[in-house]
């Protein structure tokens, strides 16, 4: 196909992107307006009052801060559990183990988030299987509160993000030739030393991009706190939802969303900067050595 047809091919994408950015233009505009009575309405004059309100409200800022800290914790947990998991999938000598884990991971990845939140509700509830097991084992003498608090949201969210991380890193570990690890063993490195000196450092870029993915999923978590937080755990997404459907304040919801979006993009940029820095450090080492 010659260049002539190419612009035509870009048309569907251009229309969709126009709608997307159009939506953000309208939304950005609305965030500077004032709420009006009636079904979420708005009116002039333009002003920064919504932004000022968010940025001076300790409760709102606390929710934003908690969301970020929580997302970091989920990200770290995903790395700690997901990396060894991906390593087994990539390197286990048994085909059955590899396919079983990969299958379970992809299945988890494809089964919906509401479904899984619901599954954890059943497992972690006061009369749930986990509490039954803990009681039967004598580890606790009365049911532990595992849902409607941070623990429940954390477990379910980790379950949600783990496949994203593990699948990202899995591909990267797979692309490290086995011979490179063997060469390290051959030169005198034990299995652990090989893992930490060779495999992990080579896959650092994948770890960072997997972490960025998990972080952006965790920071925008909405359904999990809604179902498993029992109103006590509120992340920034839930806060925005409440502004719209409880307070019927579209301009303030829009302003909160904008601030959230800026924070989300800024942290993602930090991740990409980190990824770049790692590569740069490798290049710099070259200059110094």
């Amino acid at each position, binding site marked *: *196909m010659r*260049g002539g047809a*190419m612009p035509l*091919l*870009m048309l*569907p*994408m251009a229309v*969709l992107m126009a*709608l*997307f950015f*159009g*939506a953000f233009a*309208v*939304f950005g505009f*609305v965030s500077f307006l004032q709420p009006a009575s009636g079904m*979420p309405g708005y009116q002039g004059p333009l002003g920064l009052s919504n932004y000022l309100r968010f940025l001076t409200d300790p409760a709102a800022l606390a929710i934003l801060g908690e969301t970020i800290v929580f997302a970091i914790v989920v990200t770290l947990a995903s790395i700690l559990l997901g990396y*060894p*998991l991906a390593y*087994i999938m990539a390197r*286990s000598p048994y085909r059955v*183990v590899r396919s*079983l884990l*990969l*299958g*379970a991971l*992809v*299945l*988890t990845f*494809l*089964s*919906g*988030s*509401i*479904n*899984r939140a*619901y*599954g*954890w509700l*059943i*497992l972690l*509830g006061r*009369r749930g*299987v986990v509490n039954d097991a803990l009681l039967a084992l004598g580890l606790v003498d009365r049911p532990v509160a595992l849902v409607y608090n941070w623990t429940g949201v954390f477990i379910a969210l980790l*379950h949600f993000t783990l496949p994203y991380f593990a699948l990202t890193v*899995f591909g990267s570990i*797979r692309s490290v030739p086995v011979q490179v690890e063997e060469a390290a063993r051959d030169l005198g490195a034990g*299995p652990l030393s090989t893992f930490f000196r060779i495999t992990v450092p080579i896959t650092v870029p994948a770890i960072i991009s997997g972490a960025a993915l998990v972080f*952006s999923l965790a920071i*925008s978590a*909405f*359904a999990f706190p809604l179902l498993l937080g029992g109103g006590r755990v509120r992340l920034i*997404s839930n806060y*925005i939802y409440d502004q*719209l459907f409880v307070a019927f304040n*579209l301009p303030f*919801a829009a302003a909160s*969303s904008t601030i959230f*979006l800026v924070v*989300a993009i800024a942290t*993602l940029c930090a991740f990409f900067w980190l990824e770049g820095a790692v590569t740069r450090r490798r290049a710099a080492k070259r200059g110094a050595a």
Partner: protein
Amino acid sequence: MNRLASHTLWTLFGAAMLAFLLAPTLFTLLYSFSEARYFSFPVQSYSLRWYVAFFSAAKFQKAAIETGLLALIVVPCCLTAALCTSHAVARWEFPGRRLVDALILSPLIVPGVVTGVAFLSLFRILHQDIGLVRMAIAMMVVCLPYAVRALAANYGGVDRSTEEAARDLGAGPLQAYLKVTLPQLKPGLLAGGVFVLVEVIDNFAVNVFLVDLDSNTLPIVAYQHIRDFDDPVVAVMSTLLSALALTLVVVFNRMVGLEKLSQSR
């Protein structure tokens, strides 16, 4: 650490992760078949009463139809748009190509709730009140990056000279594309299709802002049901969706292999 100990540790870890990954699905499955309203393990007696309840509930029927319709609109449209886009991006050198790349991926990094509120503001201005239309448009935008990424990963592996060979042997441009290039894009199309389908069926954060008074998708109706009732009807829905996911996994594994799926994500 000796060999046996490390072997045992890895095995235990693998088993624990497997249990962690599959536990919610498996226990939801058990719950959906239990007679009792409240879950207890082991299950006392099995029955299909919650399946009957699910299929005879008008709200779930309506939501299933709505979700199905949404998928039927979004999946083909989104894949077509992605095919056009990925072809242009892969085969057409134009200034700002990298910018276009970044633009297409931007819906991926915007939190769902923010996208939802943004589209809500847009549709308010456009006076578009039909939930299905609003959701279809939003879902196409949200899903486009998934489809484009899967196809772009695939395009990298397609040897351009196969298309040139077809042209050389007498095929027209369209013919060459349909008979030579498109078949090679099958893994990408399948992977993209799976991602889009799953996202459309599962999306909650965006669609919850866009439904109208008489349209609801399955996740939203499930959420409302969980909020208001305490019975296994949603377990039935979850189990059915997990069965769908399992079917997708098996079909995909047969046709292209699971590892391809993780590569095109």
